[in-house]
């Protein structure tokens, strides 16, 4: 039990650090920790991984709120709406709500695990291509009509993101799309290049102004009123979206943000709470296909799967009971992560107060840091760098636009296209 606690705490600390550094994520972390994890027991490995997933979401959200930079695509709604609240002087409240929503999200996921532990297989029997296609389609519709006056621009942006995502050689059919015989284009456009070039950079260029007086208000803990309902909404949506391969909690956070936007009349506090709860619930529900069907659906899960199999673990319903201790310790990890993310928020905001008036320099340094980090952790560094520079140039020209639809177009196109083809065959053949 002591080693389980140690691995959970180790995972939590690693997750908190990884969450705060854009371009890193569970996949990079698990790759780095692979050899250490390979020495431990399967239960400890899962405890580590669950703690990473839980903790990374907290500090990811904190960084998104303060800087307006999403550490990954799951925190785009938080960066959009949370940063807006932060600039209005509600930083402490939105971080507090973010943390509470995260705990609610984790609790809902664990509650569902516990209540339906013997019947979880039934979840998968419900989850077919039609259901998945409808969910992704609703998200697309929500995305397109979230700004009614700009629906055509949004469609064009989603399409542009979709085209970017399709560039490369399909891993299964080996058909190439827009590669023009170039061996690097065969690899496809790295997601982080798209994120940095077409979202983070244009956001920087919008030159938000931080007011020192507002930054000083961030010392005390608080929760934005009425966010419990939004968190519950996000948890339910996030749980189901977490089961969709490839998009998991990215889709969940956005879908719940769209739902909260509609239900709570565009209130940023509700949108952030809903998205963060969905993010945390989805991160955990995405583990279910691995645990019950031995089918990993994310890159980091695949690494965990391999380590655990190497240690003699079998993924099936009978062996799941061995992982109950992880289920028990996870709520404590969530609460501890809350406290630590609050502390990290205070430290970061203190740092932020020093750079008021110099934000352009600091933003440029942050951007450089992100580009260097993502290049270093990339498998093909020069290609990542070249893609990023190219997209930074594109980002410069579209800096006045809301570029979020490009990011979601990039992420959701694959999932939607594949499901759509299947739905046509299922319904009309």
């Amino acid at each position, binding site marked *: 039990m002591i080693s389980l606690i140690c691995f959970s705490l180790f995972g939590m600390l690693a997750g908190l650090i990884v969450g705060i550094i854009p371009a890193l994520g569970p996949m990079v972390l698990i790759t780095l920790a692979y050899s250490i994890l390979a020495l431990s027991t399967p239960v400890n490995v899962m405890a580590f991984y669950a703690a990473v997933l839980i903790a990374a979401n907290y500090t990811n959200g904190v960084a998104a709120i303060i800087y307006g930079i999403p550490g990954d695509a799951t925190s785009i709604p938080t960066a959009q709406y949370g940063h807006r609240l932060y600039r209005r002087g509600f930083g402490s409240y939105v971080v507090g709500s973010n943390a509470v929503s995260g705990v609610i999200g984790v609790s809902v996921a664990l509650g569902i695990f516990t209540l339906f532990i013997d019947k979880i297989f039934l979840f998968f029997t419900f989850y077919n291509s039609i259901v998945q296609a409808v969910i992704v389609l609703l998200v697309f519709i929500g995305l397109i009509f979230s700004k009614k006056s700009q629906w055509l621009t949004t469609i064009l942006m989603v399409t542009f993101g979709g085209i970017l995502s399709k560039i490369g050689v399909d*891993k299964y059919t080996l058909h190439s799309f827009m590669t023009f015989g170039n061996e690097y284009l065969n690899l496809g456009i790295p997601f982080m290049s798209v994120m940095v070039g077409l979202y983070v950079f244009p956001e920087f260029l919008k030159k938000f102004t931080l007011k020192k007086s507002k930054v000083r208000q961030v010392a005390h803990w608080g929760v934005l009123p009425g966010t419990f309902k939004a968190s519950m909404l996000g948890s339910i949506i996030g749980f189901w979206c977490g089961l969709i391969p490839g998009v998991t909690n990215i889709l969940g956070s956005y879908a719940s943000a769209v739902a909260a936007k509609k239900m709570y009349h565009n209130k940023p506090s509700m949108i952030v709470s809903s998205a963060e709860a969905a993010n945390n619930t989805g991160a955990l529900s995405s583990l279910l296909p691995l645990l019950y069907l031995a089918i990993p659906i994310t890159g980091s899960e695949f690494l965990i799967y391999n380590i655990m199999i190497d240690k003699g673990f079998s993924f099936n319903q009978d062996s799941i009971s061995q992982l109950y201790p992880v289920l028990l310790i996870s709520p404590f990890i969530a609460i501890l992560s809350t406290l630590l993310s609050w502390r990290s928020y205070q430290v970061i905001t203190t740092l932020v107060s020093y750079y008021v008036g110099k934000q352009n320099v600091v933003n440029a340094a942050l951007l450089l840091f992100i580009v260097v980090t993502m290049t270093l952790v990339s498998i093909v560094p020069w290609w990542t760098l070249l893609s990023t520079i190219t997209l930074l140039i594109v980002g410069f020209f579209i800096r006045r636009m809301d570029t979020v639809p490009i990011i979601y177009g990039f992420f959701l196109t694959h999932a939607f296209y594949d499901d759509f083809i299947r739905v046509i065959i299922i319904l009309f053949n």
Partner: protein
Amino acid sequence: MRKLLLILMTALATAANGYAATKITAVNPASEDGGTKQVLTSVATGFDYNMFFAGTPANAVQWFSKPNVLTVWSSEWPGNPAVKSPAITKDNTVGLIMYETAICSREFTDLASMRGKTIKISTWGHIHASKFLKTLGEPYNINFVVIPYSGSGSIARGYIGGDANTTFIAESKRAAITLDGKTSCFLSSSTDQIAFRYVDAIIALNTDPQLVNQLRASLQTQSNSASWKEKLQGTRTLVGGDHLKYFNESVAALTELIQ
């Protein structure tokens, strides 16, 4: 003392040279989160190696001019004119991994019960699978309509979700799809009831026979381990180049399907 230092330095330099000569370049031609990486990592365990991620077979080729290359080549690729396959011979083959397939259903128990019907079947989206099913169904006048997926994991999820009541899938996913208690797998390549399997050749390029033998020994050790059997369940591992006919047969069968 100086002599001692010289001897030590010479010994270190010699050791370093020997080490450098056997440095392996492991090239992963498939996705980074796929099983190929795991196979390469396992076989290269105990050797000094660098892993290069190519992502696709077309990209992997650019690393093949390096010395001591270790890679995995699927029998799907030699039939594809877009991919320049390396020469796969008895001498450079470390071993083969045969991915067995099965036809399973929660509605039917054999091909005869499908006679004359249109059957929606969840399987791989590539042309090999659909051509194979067309050939398989012809004697029974079965019209297989393929619901396409990118890999075995997604085929299994789609089947469990009810996209189709019949599936053509990798044997490794049999356990997951039979959890419903209604599904039975009635045809399998592992018992030669159907002649459709993918064969991966683990090959060593630009290297000496001694290293190939060492890699074969490593594969032999790994393939006997419990974790290898668990990770690669539904597959058969054959060590050495003597079984290359299985790879060539699979290449011929898959190539014929797409012609």
